[in-house]
């Protein structure tokens, strides 16, 4: 398998705080990779570094064979990486349709964009019903759907999802995971940040576990899921929470 995304020895600092230290991470073409770890582990910092939002203190990021470490934020998506940020960050004052249009900002094919908006609407009927509503009037789950749909509008080769299930009711979480499974089946490569370890592991191919800015484990999803040590130390909450809500 060829590495689509290849993060080498990446470190991120915020002033004196070292949020991420020498982390390596690979996502192969067609793979689903889960990035796990407790609060403050550095997951979002890694995503931000990939997205070009924060600079790397050390290391670099390669995508499709090219070094993209020093690209501006707006150029990352042009290379084919679309990030659905933590906390969704939909454009609150824009309508659902406008959010989707802006998601396609890098595309010039107007007809194709219009078609893809329709395709998104059939994948997310709830969004179709709210097409002309401002995004801020949507529920949390609907906003998350919108954020993912918006990311898909750029036709990414790699979709990075930062905690898509955060703060959502169990039923909605299931819907989100169903949706991700659908995208996986369509062949989309994904890097998924999750605290909901059990669910993430059940649908990912491989997983990395971060703790205090360091990568403490990486392996196949099954290996991580079966490692009692890992679960007890780093992922306990995630597994326990899902067990409770199931």
């Amino acid at each position: 398998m060829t590495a689509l995304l290849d993060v080498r020895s990446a470190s991120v600092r915020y002033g004196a705080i070292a949020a991420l230290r020498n982390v390596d991470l690979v996502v192969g073409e067609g793979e689903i990779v889960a990035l796990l770890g407790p609060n403050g582990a550095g997951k979002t910092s890694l995503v931000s570094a990939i997205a070009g939002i924060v600079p790397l203190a050390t290391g670099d990021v390669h995508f499709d064979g090219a070094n993209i470490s020093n690209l501006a934020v707006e150029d990352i998506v042009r290379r084919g990486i679309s990030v659905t940020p933590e906390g969704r960050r939909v454009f609150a004052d824009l309508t659902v349709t406008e959010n989707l249009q802006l998601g396609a900002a890098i595309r010039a094919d107007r007809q194709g964009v219009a078609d893809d908006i329709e395709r998104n609407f059939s994948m997310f009927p709830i969004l179709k019903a709210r097409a002309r509503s401002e995004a801020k009037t949507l529920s949390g789950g609907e906003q998350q759907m919108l954020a993912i749909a918006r990311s898909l509008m750029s036709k990414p080769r790699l979709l990075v999802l930062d905690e898509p299930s955060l703060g959502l009711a169990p039923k909605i979480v299931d819907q989100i995971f169903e949706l991700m499974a659908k995208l996986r089946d369509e062949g989309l490569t994904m890097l998924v940040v999750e605290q909901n370890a059990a669910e993430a592991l059940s649908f990912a191919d491989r997983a990395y576990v971060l703790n205090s800015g360091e990568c403490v484990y990486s392996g196949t999803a099954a290996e991580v899921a079966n490692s009692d040590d890992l679960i007890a130390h780093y992922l306990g909450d995630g597994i326990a929470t899902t067990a409770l809500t199931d």
Partner: protein
Amino acid sequence: MDYFLQQSLNALSVGGEYALLALGLAIVFSVIRLVNFAHGELIALGGYAMYLSVLFAAPPVYALIPICIFVAMLSAVCFERVAFRPVRNAPPTTGLLTAFGVSILVQNILVIFVATRPKPVPTPDWMGGTMSIGDLDVPVVQVLETIVTVVAITGLLLLLRKTQIGLAMRAAAKDFVTVRMMGVRANRVIMTAFAVSGLLAGIAAVFIISRRGAVDPFMGFIPVLKAFVACVLGGFGSLAGALVGGLVLGCAEVFLQVVLPSQVAGFRDAFVFLMVGLILVMKPEGLVGKKVELGDKDE
């Protein structure tokens, strides 16, 4: 009744002028959080472009109008490119000081290379005339200014609602990083905001100059002050606020002009600012409340 209608039109035209200027300030502020105090210098530069054109090329008088608007727009884009872009990521006070720096620099360049004294600038004769609507005789410039304001604001709304760059500007007002994550180029959004602010300032400049008939290096100060007050009055950062603030400020000025006894009419602006102060004491977030409009800064 006629008098009332005449003064209403007057109020609309003055309010429209303030609204154009306030919108220019607000649109730049909404995108990069910069209060561009050099906004007034766009008016001066547009005016001097008219003056220098007459001096060196003597084009037909009507051609001065597009020259003024174009130069104001170009100057706004240059300010951004040369002065504001290098300090874009600096703390907000740096941007503010840069704006003052640009303002002082432009004023002094005009003083040194042209003159401190006002210089006459012609505008088309018909702008200075009156026209009759029904049985009312009204100044052409007021009618024109009202109409042009409506057209400009409609155009601005269409830009913001119907174009990709407009969507990006509205979204960037709240979350610029995420807009960039969509692949929208920050430079394009910011440059468009400045171009729009320059365009609006250029349009306002034509009317300001047609009233004064002359340009001087410091002519931008009062208009930018009024625009700033209008923005604060309406709610800073909100485009709707800038519009409402501009109209209310213009109407208040004309109203006080009419009702104040002649002995105190000279203190009109003091009364206006007192009124603005009172409104802000009662409604500190401005007339157009917080989350109401696009471009509103605070979340």
